[in-house]
């Protein structure tokens, strides 16, 4: 991809975000009452994040095994209320250690 294309993508995303955040604040006065829409917008952040995670996460490291290790640690830690940064750093460390062990055992090169 050429860099002009990347700039176009980045700038159009940034403008979209600004518009999304600012415009409704200026024009809307009424509340959304439709139950389906309200539910939909409550569900959407979670489903978008999940769709981003699965299945790509399992190919985000050198081998699915180390990715699995990282995912399990991340799920457990965030279940017990650890913050975003702790969770993701621990996931990285876990995957790293898993790969180091696998390399020393000769399973991964």
């Amino acid at each position, binding site marked *: *991809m050429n*860099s002009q*294309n*990347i*700039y176009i*993508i980045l*700038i*159009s*995303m*940034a403008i*979209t*975000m600004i518009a*999304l*955040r*600012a*415009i*409704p*604040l*200026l024009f*809307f006065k009424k*509340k959304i009452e439709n139950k*389906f829409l*309200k*539910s*939909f*917008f*409550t*569900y*959407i*952040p*979670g*489903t*978008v*994040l*999940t*769709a*981003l*995670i*699965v*299945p790509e*996460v399992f190919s*985000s*490291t*050198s081998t699915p095994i180390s990715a699995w290790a*990282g995912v399990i640690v*991340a*799920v457990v*830690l*965030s*279940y017990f*209320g*650890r*913050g*975003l940064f702790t*969770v*993701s*750093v*621990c*996931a*990285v460390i876990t995957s790293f250690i898993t790969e180091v062990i696998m390399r020393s055992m000769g399973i991964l090169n």
Partner: protein
Amino acid sequence: MIEKNNDFKRGFKDGIPIALAYLPISMAIAVDAVLSGLNFSMAQIFGIMYTGSGQGIFLNYFKKGETLALMYVFMLFIANFRYVIFSISMSQKIKSDTPTWQKLLFGVINTDEVYVLAMQNQGALSGKYLMGLAFSPFLGYILGNTTGSLVTGLIPDIVKPVLGIMLYGLFIAMVIPSAKKSRKILSSVVVTIILSYILEAIPIIGKTISSWGINPAGITMITCAVSAAAICSWIAPIEEKELSDIKEEE
């Protein structure tokens, strides 16, 4: 006039805990962005986007080589449409004599966390307080982003193969707390996972989309997220009371 300036300061101070929480997050995302091939100035525009999940969408598509800007914007729009709702409910919380430029400035740097904090205040809020409240987290985020894009070069090569999981760690940490709080959210997560494997398992879908000259990964993702949310809101609509419970914890 002096009193109003104090409002900004008070807001700024109230926002500092959020700023501190944002700093390492934006740093991690910026590191991933530079490793994926963004140069320094690209990474700065990337940070101004100021949305963790939106930036995740960018990285995910970008790594797959998606070139169509519309795909990025569309997914970003869907993922962050909730800001329309935030803004609508905020507009009822802001003092009615607040000048438009203050509303606008607050609006463009509003986030989930700022929204939650603002809504916990009693009574109507002044524009200056809200601007302060939103400004310190923004500053923290930008600082983290710039730092992250500068230090990426210092990261040893041996760690790089596993750094890809960092972003997914962030996503997991964003999803799990609300899934833990609400069984309905948890179900929607499970539905999304199932759908995404089903779509992945049917090769004809990917081939058809590719034949239109579009990268199938993005379409699959939007389809999964939107249909899972629609199915869940149809089968298990979220009641008013649950809505406030879920929001509080975010």
